[in-house]
């Protein structure tokens, strides 16, 4: 064995496969996401025709075992983080919707039984986009992701779910929804709820941003699910942590988009006879954006790589989420500031990104890597 194999080194080199994947994602984000996101945000288009296109990316396929129709690669939170970053560079809201099925499939893969994997995962390998999502958030100002109020009460051979879930991506269209609830003894549990279930009421949400993600409020009014719908190895903390990796990766991509947009704009914008980036107050704001984005990225990668190697990553995911939430909003607001009045208008995407980035703090339990 070589020394390197015995002693894994600090390394930031992407694998060839990761590099190739990134190129594909970046191309897709530029061609299919960036322009559409503005139209969707303006309500001039909906995302109906967009999501089927994401099937060509095969986001779910990679990590699903060959026996179930997937590519049978081992699940890589790092590779997934790179994919999410690149998609969100196009737009956070459409990226969020596009990866919601991935989050669902990853959670079933990670925490479901063989029977649950066999039942649901092949559906994501047939080549069509299948809308699936997770529902953790609840409409309370004091909501804590590890303390859901939605209840699951044993009833006959199954459970009855009651409660309200908010900000559920693809919430209007999802065929499968992973609903997080608490059992009578307050143990958290997750149930795969089929979209056609009786008692499931979906209401499209109107929010300050993320219009393309199809966010919905789901009211569970005594929804009956069979016992087999409960994820056998559900671990709420692990689920929240894995989803934080995804949310952080999305934040990194969305913030990089702000920076990449602001740089050429500010370099071209002339005031007092020269480009505004010749002035330190503008240039330093941009330098700080670049510095903090790199910090966000490294925090996310570190947590994801620990998760990938099976090491404890709870603290890393927790800190990455705090860091990304704080700086994402700062970058969002500075993006608008840098474009001045133009940034405040819908002529440029930075006002939309500002509205989208406000959600990073709030989002939990989605985009699980």
């Amino acid at each position, binding site marked *: 064995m070589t020394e390197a194999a015995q002693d894994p080194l600090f390394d930031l080199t992407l694998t060839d496969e990761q590099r190739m994947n990134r190129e594909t994602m970046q191309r897709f984000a530029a061609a299919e996401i960036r322009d559409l996101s503005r139209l969707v945000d303006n309500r001039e288009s909906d995302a109906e025709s967009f999501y089927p296109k994401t099937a060509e990316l095969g986001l779910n396929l990679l990590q699903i075992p060959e026996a179930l129709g997937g590519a049978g690669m081992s699940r890589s939170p790092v590779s997934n983080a790179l994919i999410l970053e690149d998609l969100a560079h196009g737009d956070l809201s459409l990226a969020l919707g596009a990866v919601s099925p991935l989050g669902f499939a990853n959670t079933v893969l990670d925490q479901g039984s063989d029977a649950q994997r066999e039942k649901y995962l092949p559906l994501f390998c047939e080549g069509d986009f299948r809308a699936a999502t997770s529902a953790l958030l609840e409409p309370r100002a004091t909501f804590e992701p590890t303390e859901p109020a939605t209840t699951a009460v044993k009833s006959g051979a199954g459970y009855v779910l009651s409660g309200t879930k908010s900000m559920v991506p693809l919430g209007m269209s999802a065929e499968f929804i992973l609903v997080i609830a608490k059992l009578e003894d307050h143990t958290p549990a997750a149930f795969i709820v089929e979209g056609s279930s009786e008692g499931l009421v979906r209401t499209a949400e109107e929010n300050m941003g993320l219009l393309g993600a199809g966010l919905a409020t789901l009211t569970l009014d005594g929804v009956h699910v069979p016992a087999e719908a409960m994820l056998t190895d559900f671990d709420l903390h692990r689920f929240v942590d894995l989803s934080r990796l995804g949310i952080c990766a999305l934040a990194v991509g969305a913030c990089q988009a702000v920076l990449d947009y602001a740089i050429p704009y500010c370099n071209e914008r002339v005031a007092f006879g020269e480009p505004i980036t010749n002035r330190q107050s503008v240039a330093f704001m941009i330098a700080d954006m670049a510095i903090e984005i790199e910090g966000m990225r490294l925090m996310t990668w570190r947590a994801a790589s620990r998760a990938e190697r099976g090491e404890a990553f709870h603290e890393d995911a927790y800190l990455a989420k*705090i860091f990304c939430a704080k700086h994402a909003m700062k970058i969002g607001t500075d993006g608008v500031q840098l474009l001045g009045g133009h940034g405040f208008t819908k002529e440029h995407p930075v006002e939309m990104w500002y509205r989208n980035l406000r959600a990073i703090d709030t989002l939990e339990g989605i985009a699980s890597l």
Partner: protein
Amino acid sequence: MINLELSHKHEETFAQVMMLAEHMMRPYSRKYDKEEHTYPVEMEEVNKLIAGNRASATGKSKTPAPDGTVVNGGNMGSVVGLFGLCWGDVGLFLGMPGSGLGNAAITAVGTPAQVEKYGSSYAAMCITEPSTGSDSANISTTAVLDGDEWVLNGEKIYVTDGDRSDTLVVWATLDKSLGKAAIKSFIVEKGTPGCEVTRLEHKMGIRASDTAAISFSDCRIPKDNILGSAEVATDAEGRKKAFGGVMQTFDNTRPPVAAMAVGVARAALDMAQALLKEEGVELLYDKKPVSLNAIQAELTELEAEWQAGRLLVLKAAWMADNKMPNSKEASMCKAKAARVGNHITLRCVALCQSLGYSEQHLLEKFARDSKIIDIFEGTQQIQQLIVARRVLEKSSSDLK
């Protein structure tokens, strides 16, 4: 393959250095903070142990890595060591022989003969002058060739280890009217007639480190003691290259200085958390910060900021080890780590209230020591300027 953990080898280095820091530095932190300018003689033992570790580490890495393989080498080892040493005490570390910039400069640009003669001396760096700080291309100290000797004239200030060092690396201009290209550095042995330590500064922090003013009046040194070429480039390209070469030393020294900030900030976080824990306030990483009490919420934020600074330092060092140009990343890590380092140490004082402010503990000292790290080796604003120029692809004449 992305992995942001230290190698086992560097984990070991870190653990060893932390042992030294805890048992051989901390016990003297307060003493030498009180007795400013006193030579911390106890650090000689620490220095010997570190030099021993370094020698055995370099010995092992003599087999060059095959092309294309990742290296975690000297740059990584250096920042990891500094995390530990400056967790111990930034001031005491700076007071150790060999910790100064002078050695870095000699190693980086010296001829084999110069490295042989001065590489392991205690070398301090003389750049700053009373009226020239960040704009180091504007220095006024002169060097004139007279026969077989250079004659130096001028005044240098803020020379770290200026008093205790035995060698000085002095920046001087051959002809100020020729600008940056005429700036060269020279090796001056202490005791050379005309070279005199005129004053030691009284400082807010890093008081164990001596910071000297040194004057040069008709100070004659051998012709061979110039670092690099004596030629003054005449074309724009050559001028840029000449000064760029001098400035490149800083690309290598910024990550280590940023690492000092990471070390002292960790020290403050550890101490504040220990004090708060005694009073029942613990950092649990459970609920979202908005659901925590204000102290816990702030501690989580400080931890996150600290980790971001640390990872930026590791990235810059990794790039240097793997021969990637890292000027932008070196400045990014210096900007981030130094500002959060200062912020963290100050907040830890406030979070512990009178315990933090009191000299009974070291929190107040960490808060005084950390400030200089955001100033020396390129201020916060200079780092932002470098990052901004890189990110915006601007020249120094466009973005001043």
